[in-house]
């Protein structure tokens, strides 16, 4: 396959960026998108050019490091997968592919396709935890958890914090991420003591970071590599109202 790649190149956070076009030959349909970028970078290095900076780690869709907007869709076309699980067989010989970094004010571009997602870490620090003294694991059946809650909590906990929800949202809202984190702890008995304080503090930090509000377009759910449901956003809205009005 021969592909034309339009890739966002930006030297650092303070420099203006621009698209640079590369033609890549010998693309194998079974390559992942990140392997395509690896192959391109090898050619760039051999030519003495600066390779394209992008993030990756596990390359099996569980770490949340990859963060590309491919042809206008975070993590590219197809459902329920990260950029590292997007294979070149989804494209046709001769295609032009536009690759951009995630765009959001709280996710500043550091270089080329790499953005700084530490805003998510600060949201987690604001409440995405339970305050228990660490020790040996408790006896398995000492705290009963209803099966339905356990499954919902696990669905929410599947969030890998990649930020595709923010990238896809027309408002650059982080609601799906925050909702997943608030719900996964809020559904379990261990998360109850801090349930309302958690939602209040995490939403306050989310706003402070400069993410937008939720317009209920559900674009986040459509691009989420873990297919986190917008049900959790409804749950967050519910918990938030109770938290600010009834739980001082």
């Amino acid at each position, binding site marked *: 396959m021969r592909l034309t790649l339009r890739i966002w190149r930006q030297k650092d956070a303070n420099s203006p960026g621009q698209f640079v076009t590369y033609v890549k030959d010998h693309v194998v349909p079974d390559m992942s998108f990140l392997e395509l970028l690896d192959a391109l970078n090898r050619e760039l290095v051999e030519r003495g050019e600066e390779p394209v900076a992008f993030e990756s780690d596990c390359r099996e869709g569980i770490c949340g490091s990859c963060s590309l907007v491919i*042809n206008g869709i975070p993590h590219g076309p197809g459902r329920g997968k990260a950029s590292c699980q997007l294979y070149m067989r989804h494209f046709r010989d001769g295609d032009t592919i536009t690759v951009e970094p995630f765009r*959001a004010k709280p996710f500043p571009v550091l270089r080329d396709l790499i953005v700084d997602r530490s805003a998510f870490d600060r949201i987690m620090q604001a409440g995405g935890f339970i305050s228990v003294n660490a020790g040996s694991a408790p006896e398995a059946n000492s705290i009963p958890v209803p099966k339905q809650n356990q499954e919902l909590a696990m669905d929410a906990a599947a969030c890998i914090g990649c930020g595709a929800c923010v990238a896809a949202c027309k408002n650059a809202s982080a609601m799906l991420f925050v909702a997943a984190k608030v719900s996964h702890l809020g559904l379990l008995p261990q998360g109850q003591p801090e349930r309302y304080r958690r939602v209040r503090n995490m939403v306050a930090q989310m706003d402070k970071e400069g993410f937008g509000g*939720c317009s209920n*377009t559900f674009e986040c759910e459509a691009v989420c590599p873990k297919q986190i449901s917008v049900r959790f956003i409804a749950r967050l809205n519910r918990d938030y109202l109770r938290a600010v009005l009834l739980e001082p």
Partner: protein
Amino acid sequence: MTGLYALFRSTVGLKWLMGVSGLVLSGFVVVHMLGNLQVYLGPDAINAYAESLRKMPVLLWTARIVLLVAFGLHVFSAVRITQLNRAARQHQYELWSPQVTTYAARTMFMGGIILFAFVLYHLAHFTFGLTHPEHFQLHDAKGRHDVYAMVVLGFRQPLVSLSYLVAMVPLLLHLQHGVSSFFQTFGLNHPRYNGIIRALGPIVGLIVFFGNCSIPLAVLAGLIPYPVVGK
């Protein structure tokens, strides 16, 4: 942040304000349409209806104040949240291919501005009688304010009718996204009911659209006569 203050400051709180005020306004739009449709029952029915509202000043003014507050909160939350949303993405994508975001959802703010202007015009036309004072001062045989004549004479002018018909398009889109949306904002989302919830916006929107559009179209087609022969 706690208490009502949080509702006015946080993005989630602003959505609650927008949802609650939107629910009040959507309810009004539906009731208002039902009231309007009485024009098909003839002058006596709609003039008696208008007269009965005037005879209940407490109810009328309570409703007006609630609507005014809801309208104010809706506009306030829309402006504030749109500011925050735009600030959150200053650098737009070169290429953006939304997968599920509807046209209605993308144009809520612009549609809202058109509706705001329309509401001002509509109030000037039928509530304050500023645009057509000659239609506003008519009275029927029983001495009641002749709403029927005002509506029919107003809509006989093609440009007036056209402005109402055009304004119903953003109203349709606004209800399509808004009505389904407030369920989500109020925390009501369950796989068992989501089909109904997501259908409700378009259904309410289309009912209001066709109900309201039918009146100027019927007047222009001569289906709603004035003066009424034989009465």
